[in-house]
C-alpha cells in the first residue's frame, strides 16, 4: 500500500511508517472514580466476553507515506475516514499505537483557528500568546506583529478584548497568526471558511505565497476545487486506511469514481423534503432523467445526451403553461434556468396528463452533484401552478471530459495563429 510521492534527493519532511492509531471507546474508560469502581466490580463478566479489542476502533491503520520539503499535499476521504486523526498525528497531538512518525521542522497547525485565544485578553495580547504557543520567541513575534495585524484587517480593534470580536474577526486573527509564524509545515483542516469571500481569497493567496517560499502544506478538504488549486499530490483515506496516494488529478478521479460506486442506484432522487408551492391547477407528477438509449439514470457523464422529462397532470384546461427548470450546483450556484416560453414551445390549451422533455444534446456540466428545480407557471408568469424547489438531484460522474476547473465545459475550441504567419505559405 505504500505509495511514494515524487522522490527527490532530500530527506522527507514528514514521514509515516506503518502508522496505526486506535481509539478505545469511552465505555471502557471510566471518567470518574465511581465508574472506575463499578467497572472493577463488573470486571469478571466483562473479562469473559473479552471485548477489549472489539470495542476499539482503528482510526488510522497501517498508513505509510512521505512528504518532501516544499510539497503541498491534500488529504481526502469521507467523514470518519481518519483524516483528522492523521493530521493530529502529524501535528504531534496524538501518539501512534504502532509505527513511526518523523517530522522535521516547525509545524503550524490550523486545526482550529484561534485555539487558545483568551477571551479576556486583547487582540494584541492574544497575538503574542498564540504565536508563542506555536513556538515563537519575543523578537520573532515583534518582527511579524505589524503584518499579522494588517493581514487580519483588525487594526482598529487590536486593543479590544477578543470576547467582543465577531466570529469572523476571531477567525481572521487566528488565521493571520498561524500563517505568519514562519512554519516549515502548515497543516490546514478545512479552514477556508474564514469570513467573507474576499478574505478567503486573501487566505488562499497567502497560502500560495507560502508555497512559493518553500513551506510544506498539508491540507484536508472536501472541496475538489480547493485541492486542485493548492495541492500537487493527494492522499486518499478510507476507513483509516490509505487507499491511494499520488498526483492530485489521478487520486481525485479514483476517489470520485469510488464515491460514485458507493452510491445506491435509484431512479431520479427526489429530495426527501422540499419546498413546494403553487395553485395546484396543474401538477408535476414526476421528473425523470433519460439517457440516449431511453434508460432512466441519475448519473451522467459530461458531453453525454441527457433528457429531463417532466410529467404533468392538468386538473382544468390551462392555456400555454410555462414549463421551467433550474439547475444548481451542489454549492448553490445557479447554473441555468431554461423555460419553455423562451424555448418557444407551443402547447395551446393543455388538458389531462402528458410529458414535456428538455433535450440537452451534450451535457456541459463538469463532474459533481447537481440539484434540479422543476416548475409549471402561468403563461403570463404571474403565479406558479406547481413549483418543486431543488427537489431533484443528479450526479455528473467523472470520465466524460478532461476539464476540471469550474462548473461547465463550454462548447468551444482553441485556435492558434502566430502574428507573422509567413511559414504557412511554404
Amino acid at each position: 500500500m505504500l505509495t511514494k510521492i515524487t522522490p527527490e534527493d532530500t530527506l522527507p519532511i514528514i514521514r509515516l511508517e506503518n502508522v496505526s492509531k486506535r481509539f478505545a471507546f469511552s465505555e471502557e474508560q471510566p471518567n470518574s472514580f465511581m465508574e472506575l469502581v463499578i467497572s472493577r466490580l463488573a470486571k469478571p463478566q466483562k473479562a469473559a466476553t473479552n471485548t477489549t479489542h472489539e470495542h476499539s476502533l482503528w482510526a488510522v491503520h497501517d498508513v505509510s507515506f512521505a512528504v518532501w520539503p516544499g510539497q503541498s499535499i491534500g488529504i481526502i476521504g469521507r467523514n470518519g475516514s481518519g483524516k483528522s486523526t492523521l493530521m493530529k498525528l502529524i501535528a504531534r497531538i496524538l501518539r501512534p499505537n504502532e509505527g513511526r512518525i518523523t517530522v522535521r521542522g516547525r509545524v503550524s497547525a490550523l486545526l482550529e483557528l484561534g485555539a487558545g485565544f483568551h477571551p479576556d485578553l486583547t487582540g494584541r495580547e492574544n497575538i503574542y500568546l498564540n504565536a508563542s504557543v506555536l513556538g515563537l520567541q519575543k523578537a520573532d513575534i515583534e518582527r511579524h506583529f505589524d503584518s499579522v495585524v494588517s493581514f487580519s484587517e483588525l487594526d482598529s480593534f487590536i486593543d479590544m478584548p477578543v470576547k467582543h470580536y465577531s466570529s469572523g474577526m476571531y477567525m481572521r486573527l487566528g488565521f493571520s497568526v498561524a500563517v505568519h509564524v514562519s512554519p516549515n509545515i502548515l497543516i490546514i483542516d478545512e479552514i477556508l471558511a474564514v469570513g467573507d469571500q474576499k478574505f478567503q481569497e486573501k487566505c488562499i493567496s497567502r497560502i500560495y505565497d507560502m508555497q512559493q517560499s518553500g513551506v510544506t502544506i498539508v491540507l484536508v478538504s472536501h472541496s475538489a476545487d480547493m485541492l486542485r488549486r493548492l495541492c500537487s499530490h493527494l492522499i486518499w483515506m478510507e476507513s483509516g486506511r490509505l487507499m491511494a496516494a499520488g498526483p492530485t488529478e489521478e487520486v481525485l478521479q479514483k476517489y470520485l469514481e469510488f464515491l460514485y460506486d458507493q452510491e445506491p442506484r435509484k431512479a431520479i432522487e427526489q429530495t426527501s423534503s422540499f419546498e413546494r408551492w403553487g395553485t395546484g391547477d396543474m401538477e408535476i407528477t414526476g421528473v425523470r432523467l433519460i439517457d440516449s438509449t431511453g434508460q432512466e439514470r441519475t448519473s451522467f457523464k459530461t458531453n453525454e445526451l441527457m433528457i429531463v422529462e417532466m410529467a404533468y397532470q392538468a386538473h382544468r384546461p390551462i392555456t400555454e403553461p410555462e414549463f421551467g427548470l433550474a439547475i444548481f450546483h451542489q454549492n448553490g450556484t445557479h447554473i441555468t434556468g431554461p423555460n419553455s416560453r423562451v424555448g418557444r414551445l407551443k402547447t395551446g390549451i393543455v388538458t389531462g396528463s402528458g410529458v414535456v422533455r428538455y433535450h440537452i444534446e451534450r451535457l456541459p456540466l463538469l463532474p459533481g452533484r447537481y440539484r434540479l428545480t422543476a416548475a409549471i407557471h402561468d403563461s403570463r408568469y404571474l403565479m406558479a401552478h406547481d413549483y418543486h424547489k431543488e427537489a431533484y438531484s443528479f450526479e455528473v460522474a467523472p470520465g466524460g471530459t478532461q476539464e476540471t476547473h469550474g462548473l461547465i465545459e463550454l462548447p468551444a475550441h482553441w485556435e492558434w495563429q502566430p502574428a507573422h504567419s509567413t511559414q504557412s505559405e511554404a
Partner: protein
Amino acid sequence: MSGPLPIVETYTYDANTRWHWRTRLRELWLYRYLLYNLVMRDLKARYKNSLLGILWSLLNPLGLMLVFTVVFSVLRPDNIRQFPVFLLVALIPWRLFAGALASGSEAIINNSSLIKKVYFPRELLPVSVLLSHLVNFFFGFIVLVAFLYAFGLGLTRYVFWVPVILLTQMIFTLGLVFVLSSVAVFYRDVQMILDVVLQAWFFLTPVFYSFETFFGPTATLFGITFDPTRVMRWVNPMAAIIDSYRTVLWGTQGSLGPTSMDPSFLLRTLIQSLIILFVGYAIFVRTEHLFGEKL
C-alpha cells in the same frame, strides 16, 4: 514575506517514545517565551474584570488575617504574642500552596482547546499556574514585611532562609500539581476531592495555631514513645514548611523574635519534596501523550 525558517528540529516518535531529559530540556528552552506568556495570561485573566486588580493579592491575605484575628481573640484568647503576624506569616505561604494546588489541578483540563489543537511541552501549563501564584505570593510578602515592622519584629538575618524554604515549597507543590493535573484528565472527581482534602489539610497544618500548644514534647501510642510535633511535620511536609517560615520570620513559642532554624530539618523536607516532584513528574510524563485524546 518571510519563508520558512531553517529546519532546526526533527522529532521522531512512536508508541514507545521515551522521555529523554536532554531533548525535553532543549524543548522547554525553545518554548521559554510561551511560559512567560502563560504566566502573564493567568495574571491578566485573573484580575481583568476586577476593580482593584492586582491589589487583591495584597487585600485578600489581609482580609483573612483580620477574620482570623477577630475570631480567635474572641474564641480562644490565648497569649500568642503578635498574633496577626503569627498568622500572616503562615497564611501567605499557605495561600500560595492551596491556590496553586487548586488551579494547578485544572491546568490541563482548562486548556483542552489548546492541547487538542497544538503541540507544545505540556508541563508548561502546570508550571505557569504555579509561577503566577508565586507572583501573587511576592505581593503578599510585601504586606507581610510591612506588618513585621509594624509589630516591631522587623527582618533579621534569618530572613535569608526564606528563599530556601520557598524553593522547598515550590518543589513540593509542583510535584503535587503534576500528579493532580494529569490525573484530573482521566478522573474529573479530582477537583471535588481536592476541595475537601485542602480544607482538612489546612486544619492539619499549623497555620492559625502551633503544634506546641497541643502536644507535649513526647507522646505514647501503642507503647511507642515519640515526639508528636516531629511526626506531624514528617507526615505533612507543609507543616514543616509553614513552621520554617514562622521560625525565621516570627520565631518560636519560647523565643521573643525570629530565630535560627535547624538546617537538617529543612534538608529532610527538601529531600521529601524532591522525591514527590520526581514521582509527580514521572506520572505526568507517562500520561501526557494521552491528554490529546482524553480531553
